[in-house]
């Protein structure tokens, strides 16, 4: 019995130590001596962060140019832990990622309880809206700070807001505002809106309608995409697409085609197939997004470089939001020198918090709805087109608050 106990103890120490040593890859062995100036070389204080997602079919993009991915989000989280630990080395802090994947038919509530049981009080939730709300409602989650890194639903920032929930990923409204600011500053204010058939497509379309109203753009005509989703690889593919899309996109005079196809079922077929020669924007074409491979300003090159070395593919928006959430915890731990989740949560929500995230300015969370205010990229298929907020859209506090729900219009009452 005692032998078994010693065996388990030895295993626990060694697995902890080897994980710690793995972060210490140094070419100059004398350089990794951060305690030289510190009198007590004590055990590092540990910050545990959970990462929760649900098992899904791999994402298959419509374009052949992007790979299928099944680890979006998780790779970003792992890179952030590595970045946090590089800094933590100097501060005697250690960051640990606890990853949990809810099986396809599994219960997200069980997963949250399990994580809570493992001592997780800071949770990165890469979940869709229903799973996210279910997770946040679990009693054990009350004492947690949950970072929403996936769900863009506007009601999560409004009627269904929660005190223990921070939103790292931009809301649909922020994305729509970012795109519309660019369109109206270019005077491309007359739109043909094409909407897909899924509820998510309709939600994005609704955000674009609201943005049109806010910025006085005009939806000249709205059409629903009624064709069946087709397999992306067929030998006789392009002929049908060409003729069908051509007639489908006939409409009154307009400046751009705004497409709402979050499901990525047909939007890629629209550019160059429209009846009038018009740019395609929205969920395809020029896309408002938190992150894209085309973005290399403000030092982003370095983040892409580290990510690609680790993951062997490009960094996607869900990777970036997971990275931001965990870096927010790291930044808080650096500034407070604490590992106490409550202290870290308070600092992250407080006035002194700023997160550098390769977007040209420090980011912070809005106190009225917990949304991370941030510049939004307008990404073309091969180059960055622009970054919103666009010049000229002013605000009394922060120009970033011209994107999304501002304080006076917020319908969040539960914070």
């Amino acid at each position: 019995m005692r032998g078994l106990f010693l065996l388990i103890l030895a295993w626990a120490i060694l697995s902890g130590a080897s994980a710690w040593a793995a972060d210490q890859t140094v070419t100059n062995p004398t350089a990794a001596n951060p305690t030289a100036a510190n009198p007590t070389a004590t055990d590092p204080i540990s910050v545990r962060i959970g990462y929760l997602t649900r098992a899904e079919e791999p994402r298959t993009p419509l374009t052949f140019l992007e790979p299928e991915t099944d680890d979006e989000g998780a790779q970003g989280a792992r890179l952030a832990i590595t970045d946090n630990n590089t800094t933590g080395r100097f501060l005697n802090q250690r960051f640990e990622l606890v990853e949990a994947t809810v099986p396809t038919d599994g219960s997200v509530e069980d997963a949250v309880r399990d994580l809570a049981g493992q001592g997780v009080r800071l949770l990165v939730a890469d979940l869709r809206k229903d799973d996210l709300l279910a997770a946040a409602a679990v009693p054990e989650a009350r004492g947690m700070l949950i970072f929403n890194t996936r769900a863009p639903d506007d009601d999560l920032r409004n009627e269904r807001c929660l005190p223990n929930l921070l939103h790292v990923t931009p809301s649909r409204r922020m994305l729509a505002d970012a795109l519309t600011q660019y369109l109206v500053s270019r005077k491309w204010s007359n739109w043909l809106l094409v909407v897909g058939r899924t509820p998510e497509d309709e939600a994005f379309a609704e955000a674009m309608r609201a943005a049109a109203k806010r910025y006085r753009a005009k939806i000249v005509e709205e059409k629903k995409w009624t064709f069946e989703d087709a397999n992306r690889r067929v030998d006789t593919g392009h002929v049908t697409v060409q003729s069908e899309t051509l007639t489908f996109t006939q409409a009154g005079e307009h400046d751009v085609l705004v497409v709402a196809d979050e499901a990525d079922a047909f939007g890629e077929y629209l550019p160059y197939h429209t009846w009038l020669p018009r740019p395609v924007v929205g969920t395809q074409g020029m896309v408002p997004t938190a992150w894209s491979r085309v973005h290399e300003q403000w030092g982003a090159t370095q983040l892409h470089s580290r990510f690609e070395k680790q993951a062997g593919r490009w960094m996607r928006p869900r990777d970036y939001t997971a990275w931001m959430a965990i870096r927010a915890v790291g930044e808080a731990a650096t500034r407070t020198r604490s590992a106490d989740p409550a202290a870290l949560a308070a600092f992250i929500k407080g006035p002194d918090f700023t997160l550098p995230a390769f977007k040209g300015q420090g980011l912070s969370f809005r106190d009225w709805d917990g949304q991370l205010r941030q510049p939004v990229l307008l990404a073309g298929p091969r180059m960055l087109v622009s970054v919103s907020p666009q010049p000229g859209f002013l605000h009394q506090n922060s120009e970033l608050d011209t994107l999304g729900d501002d304080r006076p219009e917020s319908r969040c009452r539960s914070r």
Partner: protein
Amino acid sequence: MSIARGALLALLGLATLSPAEADTIFVSNEKSNTVSVVDGGKLQVLSTIKVGRRPRGITFNHDQSLIYVCVGDDNRIDVIDVATQKVVDRLPSGPDPELFVLEPKGRLLYVANEDDNMVSVVDTEAKKIIGEIQVGVEPEGMGISPDGKFLVNTSETTNMAHFIDTSTHQIVDNVLVDARPRVARFTGDGKFVWVSSEVGGTVSIIDAATRKVVHKIEFAIQGVPREAIQPVGIQITGDQQRAFVALGPANRVAEVDAKTYEVKRYHLVGQRVWNLALSPDEKRLYTTNGVSNDMSVMDLERGRVVKSISVGGAPWGVIVKP
């Protein structure tokens, strides 16, 4: 001066030649992959030297016969012969070098490798990397003490200034500063290190002996949002009375009393000012303006910008040769 001679000079329109007018200014242009050579007297571009891709960090060798420039996208350092204005050699640098500093003795170059969280030590005579120091995430700023004993490197994402003993290549201290530190600059007496924090919007003054932050300079400009104030380049006059800080998208240079740390004035320069250099006689300050693709010339005796000179695409670093 006799009246006749004075009259003759006035007739010819010649002012008394001041040393500043003989200076030559070298500017690295990040986008056009060139180094612009500017005549300090005529304030015109004399020539343009083609270098490798993405030149940023630029510095003279010990006797100013050569210029070293980091060409980050080519992962090396190009060596320019000042007399012939041609690239004559290359030095290894480790991957993606952005900034570097030459030790006072003139032999070793300390190079920040942003992608690898490392500082490479390059022997300029042997043309080899002789050592590597592991630092924080995204090293950039490099400052060296006047006696060459301590190197300070800033890590942009770790938010620290690492103090490195140059004899052992060991980090002896790590000082936390505000978000995204860029440039580290020792004062001439070696007593303080100034570190700019681009996202934090401040400049931290670190006591080099105790390695504690003794002051933090904050900036506020009427009509300019706080987020636009992003300090990067720092220069301190030789008498340590004045310091100048480039404030990035705020399009201004702050003039600071280096003893009281009070901001005296903000000088409007070009767009997105990155770095700055004093003329050797300290009568002029030159700034590189990344977005407006020009270099501003500030007359320090008159206290204002007197000219903007178009240089290459996205000018970044600047050094001055008497």
